[in-house]
């Protein structure tokens, strides 16, 4: 919990978050109290460590957690929170991706292949969002997330059995996967074994990734929550590889958006730097832990995160449709 004086002092100071130039940032630094800045930045960095840890374990960017944290606990305007969140997601993506690449869990070829449809879906989603009422989108995504989340929890044990019995190795590799050399292997530290896997249902995975992109474009979420189950359930890729590959894809997508935000001067560099450092630390710890945790535990955790996001989306949809506020939303 953030100390109350941080929030209250934060509201008293004339902080202008819409920075368009270096001069504006300098003005902000002159007007805001030095001690308050130290406390705010330090608190932000500390709060971001567990977020980074969770994001590293389940392959998400963390934007859906960061934005509510910055707006509800730190009193930042939503637009500034989103801008900081985008930069933080890039930091989370790069830190996670570099660690997982070092551990040789990430499948770069698969990541690039799926990134085509995800980014395309995100573009379509942004256009569709303008023509559809947003409560329908929230309710649709809530249904999908809760279903997939519960499914992940239910199938957690099956994942470990598949790894133990080397079932991922015996899956029939399709033509596209063969041509692009998408199949691979990784060292599972928890099982103390090298796990080989073959990629299947490549086209289905490519089309399903469009939905992850659509959700991302329509609702402003990262899409990592959907990419991991798509790779795992549709393309039959071990959940750890899916988590690592999702991280790699995330840093590519988010960096393009972050560049636009920075170029337009919407990012509060001071606060963004603090959140970036915090999330990096959390990611470094999370990436060390992930490969040592059994796959069923990761799947359970992912299921819980998905169900939580599903509930948040449901609450937003219900609120926009009827004005009724669900508890905890």
């Amino acid at each position, binding site marked *: 919990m953030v100390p109350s004086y941080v929030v209250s002092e934060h509201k008293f100071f004339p902080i202008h978050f819409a920075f368009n130039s270096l001069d504006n940032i*300098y003005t902000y630094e002159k007007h805001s109290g030095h001690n308050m800045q130290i406390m705010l930045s330090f608190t932000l960095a500390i709060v971001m460590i567990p977020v980074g840890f969770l994001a590293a374990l389940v392959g998400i960017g963390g934007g859906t957690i960061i934005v509510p944290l910055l707006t509800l606990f730190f009193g930042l305007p939503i637009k500034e929170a989103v801008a900081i969140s985008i*930069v933080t997601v890039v930091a989370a993506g790069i830190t996670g991706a570099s660690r997982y690449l070092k551990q*040789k869990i990430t499948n770069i070829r698969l990541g*690039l292949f799926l990134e085509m449809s995800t980014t395309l879906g995100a573009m379509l989603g942004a256009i569709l969002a303008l023509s559809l009422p947003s409560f329908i989108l929230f309710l649709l995504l809530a249904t999908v997330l809760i279903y997939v989340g519960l499914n992940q929890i239910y199938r957690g044990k099956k994942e470990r059995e598949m790894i133990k019995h080397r079932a991922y190795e015996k899956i029939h590799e399709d033509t596209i996967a063969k041509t692009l050399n998408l199949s691979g292997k990784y060292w599972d530290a928890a099982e103390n074994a090298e796990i080989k896997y073959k990629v299947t249902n490549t086209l289905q995975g490519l089309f399903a990734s469009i939905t992850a992109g659509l959700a991302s474009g329509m609702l402003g979420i990262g899409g990592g929550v959907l990419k991991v189950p798509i790779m795992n359930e549709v393309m039959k890729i071990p959940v750890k590889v899916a988590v690592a590959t999702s991280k790699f894809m995330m840093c590519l997508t988010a*960096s393009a958006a972050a560049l636009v935000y920075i170029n*337009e001067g919407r990012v509060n560099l001071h606060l963004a*730097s603090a959140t*970036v*450092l915090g999330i*990096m630390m959390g990611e470094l710890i999370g990436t060390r832990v992930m490969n040592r945790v059994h796959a069923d535990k990761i799947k359970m955790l992912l299921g819980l995160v998905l169900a939580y996001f599903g509930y948040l989306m449901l609450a937003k949809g219900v609120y926009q449709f009827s004005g009724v506020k669900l508890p905890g939303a």
Partner: protein
Amino acid sequence: MNLEDIACKGLTLGLTISLIILTLGFFFAYIVHSSPLTTILFYAGIITLVITPVIVITGLLIVFIKMREKYMALITLTVIIIIIISGLLKR
């Protein structure tokens, strides 16, 4: 050197440089309290971080071309183009 090594080295280098610059930024902000320099350092750190994936994916495209993997090179090029277009659309 394989693809994973190249991408890993690129991302780690970008991450390390940005981490050093940001830490220096905080040093100047909270110990020396020099605002213009702090701002420049924060800006440089964040920009280094954000352009790192763009440089890495361009590097991967060059590797695919060198390895004569035409399908993967085409896919990587498509990703770069779509990311640029989506960035321009967001703007």
